[in-house]
């Protein structure tokens, strides 16, 4: 895992003391069985599987944000740059114990990429069965649930964001990359009382 030294301790304190931990294998295997079951349920229609995973993640995100705020006390971010930094160094750190790299900022500072470190905790034991089923390599985004989580969580703090995978090492790409794009900050929906 490549982490620059000055932010090595980011989120460590909260991660050590305030979060419950489970065996990561249990987590990886549970997620794996959900994805494979979905593939069977939807007759290997991988677009639909992606949708379902995204929807599941979205519903998780809507709720997860409360725990994140309660356990970190993060305030409203003034720029999207700051938001992404908090997501990477606190959010991913607390919930998955990884710190994705932030890259590829667009010139208007509204979209960027999160590069998940290898191994991605969701895909530790995964090998896509590409010999049996060639479609799966082209269509399934195995960790799509993460996109849904980010989208749901950000929506609760009034950020309308598009999140999707553009690369995945499972498909033979050189890295695993999530693309985030800020559509809108829903200013009217910010609760009264913030300054």
């Amino acid at each position, binding site marked *: 895992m490549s982490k620059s030294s000055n932010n090595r301790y980011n989120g460590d304190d909260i991660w050590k003391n305030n979060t419950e931990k489970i065996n990561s294998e249990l987590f990886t295997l549970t997620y794996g069985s959900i994805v494979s079951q979905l593939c069977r349920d939807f007759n290997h229609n991988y677009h639909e599987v992606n949708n379902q995973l995204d929807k599941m993640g979205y519903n998780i995100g809507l709720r997860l944000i409360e725990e994140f705020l309660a356990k970190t006390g993060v305030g409203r971010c003034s720029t999207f740059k700051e938001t992404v930094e908090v997501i990477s160094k606190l959010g991913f750190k607390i919930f998955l114990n990884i710190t994705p790299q932030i890259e590829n900022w667009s010139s208007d500072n509204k979209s960027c990429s999160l590069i998940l470190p290898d191994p991605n905790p969701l895909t530790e034991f995964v090998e896509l069965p590409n010999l049996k089923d060639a479609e799966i390599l082209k269509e399934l985004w195995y960790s799509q649930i993460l996109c849904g989580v980010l989208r749901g969580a950000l929506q609760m703090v009034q950020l309308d964001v598009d999140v999707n995978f553009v690369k995945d090492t499972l498909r033979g790409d050189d890295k695993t990359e999530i693309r985030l794009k800020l559509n809108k900050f829903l200013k009217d929906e910010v609760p009264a009382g*913030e300054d």
Partner: protein
Amino acid sequence: MKVYSIYILNKAGGLIYQNDVNPGLNRLTANDYLVLAGTLHGVHAIASRLTPALNGRDTTNPTESHSNKNAAILSTGKVQDANSNKSGLQSIETDLFNLYIFQTLTGIKFILVTSPNPVVHNLQQINRELTNRGELSKQYDQANEVFKHLYIVYSDYVMKDPFYSLDMPIKSSLFDMKVKEII
């Protein structure tokens, strides 16, 4: 500080949880609780418009203070206060009760009704000013401590209940139990 009641409001001002922790209280009718919640929600919003000193001072300041707070979390990994209620109604203090409001970034309000500030006796009149202020901020800090735990318990036992639907009334005996443990 004795806690009398706890209310939780969703972001639209609807009452989703109400717990009269102190059994000696007179009960209101179910409808009155809803009205009370709605009123507080409205007054809180109006109050945020009535804080010219804070809003007029410097518009760049508030965001800066947020960024400082976030930067502090990022660099030290220490938990900070999750209360985002900066310009709205924060507390009401009367001779009979105190009321405190805590708001999260997502717009959920936690409301605490507690016993009033302790009375300062004549004997201490010399130090009255000092003692009073000490007690006031002490009770305020205590309330904030309760809020912090309340929010964590809420995020665990309400948000993680798979059968709870967002923004709906909370009917969870497990949550009730955890709330009692805090107080």
